[in-house]
Every structure is written in C-alpha cells, then in structure tokens.
C-alpha cells in the first residue's frame, strides 16, 4: 500500500458528511426539547421554562388514547395480512421461474412506487363507486396493500440465500411438505419475516396520506397529529405525542436491524 490517504477521509469530506448527518438528526432531537416547554401559544425558542406537566395532560386525553388504540389495531391486522401475502408472493417468486414473475414484482412494488395520494384517491373512488362505507376495514385494506412490499422484499432476499438442497434433503429424509415447511423453511426465514413484519408495522403506524382517503371520520394517531398541525388546539400536547411517536417507531426499526444485520440484505434499506 503506497498511500495512507485512502485510509482516512479528507477534512472537507468529514465535515460535509458530519453536517449532513446532523441535518438529519437535530430536527428530531428538537422535538424532545419542545415536549418539556412551558410555552403554550407559540413555538418560542429558547423555551422560557421546562415542565413535565404536559405528559400528564396528554395521558388524560381520551382522544389521544382512542387514536392510539385505532392505530395499533390497524397496524397489527395490516401487518398480519401483509406478512401472509408477502411471504406467499416471495415464496412463489423465489422457488420457481414462471411466466409473469416480473409482473408479480412490479405489482407488489407499485403501491409504494406511485405517490401515496394516487393509491389513496384510487381506493377512495373505488369505495364510493362500490358504495362501501368507511370503516375500520377500509383503513386496513389500504395499509395492507402498501405493507406487502416490505415483507416481500425481506422474504425474497432470505429465500434467495436459503439453499434449495436443504428442502430436498428434508423431503428425502421422509418429511412431508408441511413438516418441511414447519421444521426447515420456517426457521430459515423466521428472522427475515419478523423484521419485515416490524417494518410493516412501523410503516402502517405512521401512514397518513392513504389513510386520509380511506378513514372517513375515524382518526388514527397520524390523522390526529395532522389535524393538530393544521388547527392547533394545545401545542405542548402535540409535542409530547410527537416525541412518543418517535420513540415508538424507533424500537421496531432497531429490532429489525439487529434481526437481519448479519445477512447480505438488511431490512428496511428499501422503504
């Protein structure tokens, strides 16, 4: 090796990369400070004082609890549906080469490649054409549709790494298809599925654009926040909820990362 230069970056590159990362993180950290401010009417900086009373106020607000419960329910069911559909599609695409494979991949990716507003308005106009009233299930319909892709991406990557000869060996040793699935395939893909499921949960829990079109009068937590952003009622309470949302979404992302970090394809790299 001739030069040590290649081992360490130039100063300007270091500064540019550092500033870039700071730009990505400081705004989110700022939310944490604002959750403790005593100022109610404006976004004044620096905060005139610090208090924890807004946590108690937020805790006692029934509308927040209702929105949170709805969001968790929707995200759980949408995740389960997305896991089933995504795994099936991934298994089909991974195990055999058949006519129209590309179409399946495109179909799965489309709901996330097109702007959310198009998915939203398409579903809404379809509901109104078919005279379907807005319910809990119309929200889930939309969420499951765009959650399939994250499960699919994770599962396809893992299936590709899982050797087909393992399955053949299991069959040769006398296991039937279901036993092979239970004892050979499932343990191999389990962490990828879990990671995909967590990302799907995070995606659904946070979704607002499609939801505004499919929720009608119901309010999930993101919709609750959106309304507070447009017509603020009690700003400090919104700050507290924002901070909690940040913490709640970070946990599944970190978990998904640790579940898949030793593999070639790391979960979440294609939201």
């Amino acid at each position, binding site marked *: 090796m*001739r*030069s040590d*230069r*290649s081992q360490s970056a130039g100063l300007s*590159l*270091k500064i*540019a*990369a550092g500033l*870039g990362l700071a*730009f*990505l993180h400081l705004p*989110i950290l*700022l*939310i944490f400070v*604002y959750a403790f401010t005593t100022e109610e009417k404006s*976004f004044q*900086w*620096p905060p005139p004082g610090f208090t924890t009373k807004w946590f108690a106020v937020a805790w006692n607000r029934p509308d927040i609890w209702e929105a949170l419960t709805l969001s968790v329910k929707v995200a759980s069911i949408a995740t389960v*549906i997305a896991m089933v*559909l*995504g795994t*099936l*599609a991934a298994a*089909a695409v991974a195990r*055999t080469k058949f006519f129209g494979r590309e179409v*399946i991949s495109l*179909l*799965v990716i*489309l709901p996330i*490649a*097109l*702007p959310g*507003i*198009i998915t939203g*308005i398409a*579903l809404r*106009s*379809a509901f109104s054409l078919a005279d379907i009233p807005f319910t809990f299930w119309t929200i889930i319909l939309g969420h499951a*549709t765009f959650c399939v892709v994250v499960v699919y991406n994770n599962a396809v990557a893992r299936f590709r790494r899982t050797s087909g000869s393992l399955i053949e060996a299991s069959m040769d040793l*006398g296991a*039937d*298809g*279901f036993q092979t699935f239970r004892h050979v395939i499932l343990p191999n893909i389990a962490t990828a599925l879990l990671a995909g499921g967590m990302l799907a949960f*995070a995606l659904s829990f*946070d979704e*607002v*654009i499609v939801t505004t079109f499919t929720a009608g009068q119901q309010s999930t937590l*993101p919709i609750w*926040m*959106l309304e507070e*952003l*447009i017509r603020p009622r009690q700003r400090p309470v*919104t700050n507290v909820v924002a901070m909690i*949302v*940040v913490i709640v979404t970070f946990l599944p*992302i*970190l978990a998904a*990362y640790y579940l898949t970090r030793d593999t070639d394809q*790391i979960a979440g*790299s294609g939201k």
Partner: protein
Amino acid sequence: MTAISTSAITPGRQGLMGRLSDLFWRRPNLLLVLMLVPPLLWLGIIYVGSLFALLLQSFFSIDEFSGLINYEFTLATYGELLRPANFDIILRTLLMSAAVTLASAVIAFPIAYYAARYAKGRWKAVFYLGIMLPLWSSYLVKVYAWKLILAKEGILTWIFAKLHLTWLLDGLLAIPVIGGNSLSISYLGTFIVFVYVWLPFMILPTQAALERVPGNLIEASGDLGADSRQTFRHVLFPLALPGIVAGSIFTFSLTMGDYIIPQIVGTSRLFIGQAVYAQQGTAGNIPLAAAFSVVPIVIMGIYLTIAKRMGAFDAL
C-alpha cells in the same frame, strides 16, 4: 425425481395432510398457483382495479351546472389541465421536484461517499442507523419538527440573531417568489422540508452505487496524476450516477405526490397533490382530480424509462 420413483420407494402418505403433501409434490404447479392466488387477488383486484377505475373517471367530465358527473367519454377534463391556473400548478410542482432532487443529490453525496468508503466496523453501523432512523421515523413528526424550526419565533431566527446574521435571513426572505413573511410560509421553507424528508431516499442508492466502486480505481486515478477534483469528475461521479438517478426516482416522485408538506409549511399556492385533494374533496370534481393524478403517473413512467436506460435499476 419423478412421481413414479417416489411411489416406488414409499407408499402414499395417509391422512388429509399427507395426501395434500403428496399432491403438491406431484404437481408443483398446483402449489404455485395456490401460493399466487391470494396476493394476486388482493393486489390485482383491490389495488389495480381501483387504479383503473380512477383512470377511467378521468375520461368523464363534470356538468358545470348540476355538479354531477357526466359519464360520457371526453378529453375535455384533460383539456382543463392546460388552463393557466391548472398548468401553473403542474409547472410549480415539477420545478419544486427538480430543485429538491438536485439539492438532495448534492447533500447526499458526501454522506454516501463517507459511509461507503471510509466507515468501518462500528462506524459503519452508526452510519447505517444514522440514515435509517430518520428514514423510518414518523413523517408527520419530521414535518412538525420543521414547523417548530422555521417558525418566526423559532430556533432558526434565534440562531441567525445570535450570530448577528439577521440581515442575511431578511435578505433571503426578501427575494421575490421564493421568499415571504417568514420561512414557514415561503417556498424556501417548503423546499427545505422536502429536502429533509426525502434525503435518506437519495443517500441509500448513492451509497449502494459507491460501494461497488473499487478503492484501487480511485488510487489509480491519483497515481496517474489526477487531482481529487478530476478524480471526482471523471471517475467517481460517472460510476455513482446510476445510484444518484435511482435516488432521484424517489425524491422526484415523492415530492410530486406530496400534499401535506406544502399545506403545513408554505404559501397558499397549490401543488399537484393539493389540487387532487381539493378537487376530490371540497370541489367534488372526481374527473378533474383523476386527470390531475394521471400527470405524476405519466411523468414517472417517462422518468422510469429514462432511468432504466441509464442503468439505475441495477443500483437499487
């Protein structure tokens, strides 16, 4: 292995599950079809069906007097897109998407390059999570954070004042068109928030492309006498370009379809997403909303075709 040889070794399995298992083994296509039916039904019927229903409606028109939808084939609704007020919306959105894409590419490159080439071991993980956490953290919370930052009484005004640079901020806001009363109600503000929210989507593909550039290529360029600017211009940038184009697919498409950011941070002039939302909601003009939403679909179709030619999909 054929069906005959398996049955020659062992007798058929007993029980429902056993027989099913044998059936799937003998006819793998049956299993394939069974696996494909549920996702195809869901995505094909619910999703693509809805999309087609929407596209169909863009060929209808709305009766100006009764406000009812006239179910006859017409291109009149598409003609309305060309009216100055509507065409301005499209133009404004495209300009914003282009500006956001360029700015994201410039800011993303150093982060992606550092993460791809210099970050090792623990730092690799730090960079990975450092990009992934903002990408996955709540979209609305990110927008909200910027509403706090850009507010007139917020932290940015405070920083400018502390640095005795208030004149600079006022100067920026005084620029016609992109300026305004405060950052939170100007195009400049909208632009900053868009760049912030979509930046990770640009970093990831750029980083993936840069990771494939062999380090000795850069060294060779240096050994052959190129300075770092020439190396960037003639070696690094061309090799990273497919990744940047791949990232631009996301930044461009996401900016074009967004209707929440310009509503919360920005002027009262509409973007395509807001126009779609307003037309289908308060105005009740579903055909025009549908025609508006065809614009991003067509533009993304063209964009994807060009991107594919430039090899952007290999970088994804």
